[in-house]
């Protein structure tokens, strides 16, 4: 079984400051990892994904994440946030390298509040 832990339920940060949203996962097999963003009253949108290869993954809107296998982490970072980044962010994990359907497990989300 796999699980995802998002350690921070809310993260306030001033505009133009850097931010890191933490995600740790647990799995006995190789994994695929995703970050999604949810704006108010909308569904989730994919920010970035790690499948294989380079452990530093770049996504949309200036976000990036680093896969750290030894620490079982996939933290999301942005060097300078904007007001428009205010949203809820979800980390997700699924079993990797299976070639077929595997259930995706989502974290409970981190609400990023950018303060002007």
């Amino acid at each position, binding site marked *: 079984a796999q699980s*995802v832990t998002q350690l921070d339920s809310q993260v306030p940060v001033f505009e133009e400051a850097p931010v890191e949203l933490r995600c740790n996962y647990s799995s006995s097999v190789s994994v*695929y990892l*995703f970050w*999604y963003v949810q704006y108010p*009253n*909308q*569904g*989730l*949108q*994919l920010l970035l*994904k790690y*499948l294989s290869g380079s452990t530093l993954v770049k996504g949309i809107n200036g976000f990036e994440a680093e896969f750290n296998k030894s620490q079982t982490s996939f933290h999301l970072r942005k060097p300078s946030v904007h007001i428009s980044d205010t949203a809820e962010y*979800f980390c997700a994990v*699924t*079993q*990797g390298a*299976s*070639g*077929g*359907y*595997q*259930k*995706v*497990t*989502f*974290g*409970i*989300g981190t609400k990023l509040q950018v303060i002007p």
Partner: protein
Amino acid sequence: GAGVSQSPSNKVTEKGKDVELRCDPISGHTALYWYRQSLGQGLEFLIYFQGNSAPDKSGLPSDRFSAERTGGSVSTLTIQRTQQEDSAVYLCASSLEGGSNQPQHFGDGTRLSIL
């Protein structure tokens, strides 16, 4: 191109009534998922459809919940004899295929309120 479309966007109903929620996936996407998002919770998996294969119903919380997907496209999630704890946002997602490396594309959800 059109994304995943869900209707209604909001639904308010009385306890004990049945409700039907609709999802129209992205054209050509063979995989379809239903999730439930409750306040302060993550996404709870409900059911997965892939082509003509038998659906994965392992996430349905009770026999009051059912879903079907007709013609490999539109899906409806039905909740019978609704209870107050069914109040949540119900999200539908689709992906090109059902592989675990495929990102999911989400609709805006149906906000269900049970009075």
